[in-house]
């Protein structure tokens, strides 16, 4: 709670429920209260990115001197988990392409590389498909409706990113949109269709046209189970429970593979690869600013650390997306995402006084900042939960009014949310959900070109780990598009680029350089990275205790 102080004299849960009334009118009949400050000022005062005390300057590495969130700086400037001695006697495997990460981007890259005839290993920290992709349910953007154009998609994306995205990357993204949907259908993915078999579309916050295609509120689940099945039925060699802990480099500083920690065998394996594609996703489980997160358990920024240590340039390390509608209650689901599809379909956000306070279809950073403002200025719903123990705060996501205006829509289009409500004993057709922004997405990341190549030869980065496409704020549906579009690009390109001859010498010299630089800058070197798992999973303490006591019967890491 430390960063999210609850105002005293705020409005209690029960009181706020009393202020809440069903709104059967349409958007026009129930106008939002005009924001009383302009959007720039709103972001500056209330968006978590603008808390100056959380920003620092990087002391070492290719982005030395750049602004960076303190918690990200801590992992980028930590010590390696690996010493040269760790590699003595390790098993060595060779492949053409090594994909690190088993979400949508990793699968798309692996499928393309394997299809082009390359030998591919896909190593993932947990199980194939355990990723943020599987939870990205709102939909995927592609300009396909009559009257909509890639140009409009480009303009919306560039504008929402506060004019700071890489124009060439955005152009590739939007031009790939329709083809990406076709490719997914050819993998066997289904989308919601109208009676004539055309793709249904809806708006996203900040888009000028109906451009999000979707499958119920299970778009990411549908995408991921199809891609997982496609990969498992391909020639890709899948390594589950195999997080990468360090990259390997060759005599010229090119990327030459990775060191994998096999969780099941409790030992390291070196994979020599002609090219490496990092698709490790984002950072939500670092819980920036103590926020809850919508992210997958494994989203600990590992890829950022690996790439940075090898010298890859990063960007926008002070810019993150807080999704406006995370669950605030019940507690065990705190931070869980409620899809933007609800707002796209017309659900209001209501404060404790029963008022709308922002146009719900503004870009995510604006809506999130507006919610935080309501809570900080005493118009949020605050109080004890039903058991009187846990303090929570938030505003209402008005599902009952949406249901009243469009009977049946919740069950038909949002079965996942209905289920979530049932499990929490909340009937979302009758009672609004309490929501608060949740840490959702890393806007920046590794600098890439139009084929996902980083600034280090032989190293590609795709998906959330990369930066530049979304500038400083991402639109709904552009992440699922990006992972497939750039995943496929990188997979195809990596095969073309692979060196015909292997690397002469494989080293981890870059770690010695890192340590020297850290010491020269008087950095503490007390912690190690990549983190691999959030602190509360107690991964490192488990590893140590099994090392000491091999008869332990309760190892939550390897079940041995």
């Amino acid at each position, binding site marked *: *709670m430390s960063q999210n102080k609850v105002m005293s004299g705020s409005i209690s849960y029960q009181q706020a429920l009393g202020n809440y009334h069903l709104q059967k009118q349409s958007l026009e009949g129930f106008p939002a209260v005009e924001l009383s400050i302009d959007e720039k000022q709103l972001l500056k005062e209330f968006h978590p990115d603008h808390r100056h005390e959380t920003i620092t300057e990087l002391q070492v590495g290719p982005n030395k001197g750049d602004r960076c969130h303190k918690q990200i700086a801590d992992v980028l400037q930590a010590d390696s988990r690996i010493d040269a001695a760790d590699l003595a006697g390790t098993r060595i495997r060779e492949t053409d392409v090594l994909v690190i990460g088993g979400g949508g981007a990793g699968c798309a890259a692996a499928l393309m590389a394997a299809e082009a005839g390359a030998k591919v290993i896909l190593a993932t920290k947990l199980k194939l*498909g*355990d*990723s*943020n992709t*599987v*939870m990205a*349910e709102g939909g995927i953007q*592609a300009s*396909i409706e*009559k009257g909509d154009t*890639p140009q409009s998609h480009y*303009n*919306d994306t560039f504008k929402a990113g506060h004019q700071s995205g890489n124009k060439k990357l955005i*152009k590739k993204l*939007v*031009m790939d949109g*329709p*083809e990406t949907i*076709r490719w997914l*259908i050819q*993998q*066997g993915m*289904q*989308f919601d269709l109208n009676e004539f078999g055309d*793709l249904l579309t809806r708006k996203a916050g900040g888009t*000028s046209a109906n451009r999000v295609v979707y499958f*119920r509120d299970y778009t*990411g689940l549908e995408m991921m*189970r*199809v891609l997982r*099945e496609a990969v498992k*039925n*391909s020639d890709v060699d899948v390594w589950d*429970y195999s997080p990468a802990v360090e990259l390997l480099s060759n005599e010229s500083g090119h990327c030459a593979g990775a060191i994998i920690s096999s*969780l099941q065998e409790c030992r390291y394996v070196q994979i020599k690869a002609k090219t490496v594609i990092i698709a490790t996703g984002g950072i939500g489980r670092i*819980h920036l600013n103590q926020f809850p997160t919508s992210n*997958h*358990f494994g989203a600990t920024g590992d890829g950022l650390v690996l790439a940075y240590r090898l010298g890859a340039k990063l960007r926008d390390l002070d810019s993150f997306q807080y999704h406006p509608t995370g669950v*605030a209650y*019940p507690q*065990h689901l*705190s931070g869980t995402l409620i899809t933007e599809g609800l707002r796209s379909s017309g659900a209001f956000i209501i404060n404790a006084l029963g008022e709308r306070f922002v146009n719900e279809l503004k870009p995510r950073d604006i809506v999130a900042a507006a919610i935080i403002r309501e809570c900080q200025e005493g118009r949020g719903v605050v109080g004890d*939960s039903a058991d009187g123990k*846990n303090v*929570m*705060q938030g505003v209402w996501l008005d599902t009952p009014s949406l249901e009243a205006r469009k009977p049946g829509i919740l069950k038909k289009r949002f*079965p996942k949310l209905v*289920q979530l409500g049932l499990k929490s004993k909340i009937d979302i057709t009758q009672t609004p959900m309490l929501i*608060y922004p949740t840490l959702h997405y890393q806007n920046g990341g590794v600098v890439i070109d139009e084929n996902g190549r980083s600034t280090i030869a032989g190293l590609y980065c795709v998906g959330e780990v990369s930066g530049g496409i979304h500038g400083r704020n991402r639109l709904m549906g552009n992440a699922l598009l990006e992972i497939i579009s750039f995943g496929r690009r990188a997979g195809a390109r990596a095969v073309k680029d692979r060196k015909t001859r292997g690397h002469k010498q494989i080293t981890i010299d870059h770690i010695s350089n890192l340590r020297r630089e850290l010491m020269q800058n008087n950095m503490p070197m007390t912690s190690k990275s990549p983190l691999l*798992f959030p602190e*509360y*999973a*107690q*991964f490192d303490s488990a590893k140590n205790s099994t090392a000491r006591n091999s008869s332990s019967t*309760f*190892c*939550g*890491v*390897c079940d041995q």
Partner: protein
Amino acid sequence: MNHNLNDKQTNKKNENEVSLSINGQPITAPDSLSVIQALWHAGYPRVKGVGCLDGVCGSCSVMVRRADSSEIKMELGCQLLIEDGMDVFFSVFELPPQHNYELSRINTSWDVQTEFHKIFPEAEKCRHCNGCNKACPKGIDVESGVELAVKGRFRESGELFVECVMCNLCMTGCPEFIDPNHVGLFARRVTGYFHTRPSNLINQLEAIRTGQLDVDIEEQS
């Protein structure tokens, strides 16, 4: 806000704490926590079998017996709130080998049914024991889904598996070694692969292919 499980609030003993057993270990934790959160809260490491924490990745399947019942149920550990006297075990089933198929090798939609029986020969041996249905933590009518697929009614079959998270528990519940969830996913995939042909998408693809639509990166909206 409350993700921090070492929070002082949750550490102090109060009347909302419940006692249960997880993987044979006695654990006491507040009743507002899920099974996975309760393990972490009690200081036990847990990495394996933890995934999206959102009920959609299928990694955290657990077997649970409640205090007032002898019945063993399958649930997802991230979604299951702990109760007093619960007995919970994380499932550690090894997966049987998968069926192997590629959609691109099925020549036309007329061949799907023939190919299905070649890929899943055991599917027609279903003895309607209800084992898959009992095993499903999502309450899917798995058995009917398999039956529909066997009859060649793939679109209908696939509709039943909309909420399937591929946790593979139904595979463990099947005495005929049918992989019901993979049958369901096959049914869904062939429906998309052969029958999704949206005209709005196709028109736009054509406009891009012929150069009618392009992006000028300097144009301002």
